């Protein structure tokens, strides 16, 4: 995997002192990048990592099919998880991942053991209502602005209670690029009738 011009992870490991390399590996894990060249570490036990204490009130997550949740309706004991990275064909084949799809797939965000939850790179399970924590692992600058009320739409009171939206209300998680819109009518130039 290339890192900057002409440097690969192998090179970085060779050139850096041990502590720096360890820190780097940690950073990779934290950032949730695919752990291609990093040493495969034991994931910390679930539920032991303290969750970021900031919780934001948002409307419910926008599931495309309202009946699809909870996922455990189908993903239950009768369906052992298949951890093999693959192209889905039987179900969910309508989802085309256009979100760093070269490096990631379903189970990087969805939890294999508990399908009704997402998981962070460190293994922490989070409900779909807090998906912003998941997005924030890679998009830290946007997460910071969003928490401050600067990224994303706010409604409510400038000096009081505000309603936040989840990242996924505007950016469909599997294809997050904001879609263009048809503009409303242009103004009528002076002297012309509508």
């Amino acid at each position, binding site marked *: 995997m290339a890192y900057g011009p002409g440097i690969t992870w192998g090179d970085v490991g060779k050139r850096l002192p041990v502590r720096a390399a360890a820190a780097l590996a940690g950073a990779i894990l934290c950032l949730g990048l695919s752990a291609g060249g990093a040493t495969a570490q034991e994931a910390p036990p679930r539920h032991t990592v303290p969750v970021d204490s900031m919780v934001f009130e948002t409307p419910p997550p926008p599931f495309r099919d309202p009946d699809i949740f909870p996922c455990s309706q189908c993903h239950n004991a009768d369906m052992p998880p298949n951890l093999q990275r693959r192209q889905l064909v039987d179900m969910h084949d309508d989802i085309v991942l256009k979100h760093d799809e070269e490096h990631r797939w379903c189970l990087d965000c969805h939890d294999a053991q508990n399908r009704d939850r997402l998981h962070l790179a460190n293994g922490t399970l989070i409900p779909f209502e807090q998906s912003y924590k998941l997005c924030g692992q890679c998009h830290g600058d946007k997460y910071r602005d969003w928490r*401050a*009320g*600067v*990224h*994303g*739409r*706010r*409604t*409510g*009171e*400038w*000096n*009081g209670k505000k309603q936040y939206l989840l990242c996924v209300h*505007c950016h469909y998680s599997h294809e997050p690029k*904001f879609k*263009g*819109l*048809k*503009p*409303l*009518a*242009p*103004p*009528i*130039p002076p002297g012309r009738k*509508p």
Partner: protein
Amino acid sequence: MSESISRRKFLCIAAGCAAAASVAGCSDITHTSFFRHNFRDMTPDELKKIIADLEREHSATFGKQVLVGVDPPMDGVSFAYALDISRCIGCRRCVYGCVGENNQSRDPQIQWIRVLEMNKEKGIDFQEANPYYDAEEVPRPGHFYLPMACQQCENPACVKSCPVGATWREKDGIVVVDYDWCLGCRCCLSACPYGARRFNWGKPTLPAEEMNPDTHYLGNRPRPKGVVEKCTFCIQRTRRGKYPKCVEVCPTGSRKFGNILDPESEIRYILEHKRVVVLKNELNTHPRFYYFF
């Protein structure tokens, strides 16, 4: 204010002559819009009577309960606005959100917000800007969008140009117009370097079912023909703590609003962390409208 007294006296005399034989004496017609005092000179009693008259009149015209508020500026509050030009896609949702909220005339068309389409290669260049763009989908490649409305200048050229003091800057930073004091001379229109003011050349039309009955005296109450109007940061909403309408309708979340004196506000975060520009900085108008990216 000697100016207001002399105008009022003069008009009373003039009207008195014209209506000498009619039933209405001068004291009975002082509350019609022509004889109202400047908003800043009204006594509380006078204001109360005028509000009652206005509410009755507008409620009858539009067939619903219309309220005319006079909420004063809040203590320790000075408003500012910020717009993310790297996010705005030029969809004009803000324009029509504003028209509806602020009771702007549909025909002749009045729109306080104007979205300018600019060429990415040219940067912010008003010579190249196009407000009339239309497309199947925005943003159009190679373009960016810069919505413009009143910049609520700290040093407003419009206020200085008004010969009768019908427009002024309030303590919370909102530049307002007293529609009953405005002469319609349009000095402010030509003085404003941002093209932010609109003139009611014809009698404004406003469909009753679309009329927003929650109004403010210095904001979105229905205007007569022949007066100037402009953005007031949604004075009827923001003085009650709500966000302006355009902030709430913008689908990209490009629009940010708040109290510049509050260090925790979104506005302060933007001023402290983002790259901010104001338009026509060299004119020393000190806009309270910041564009950031």
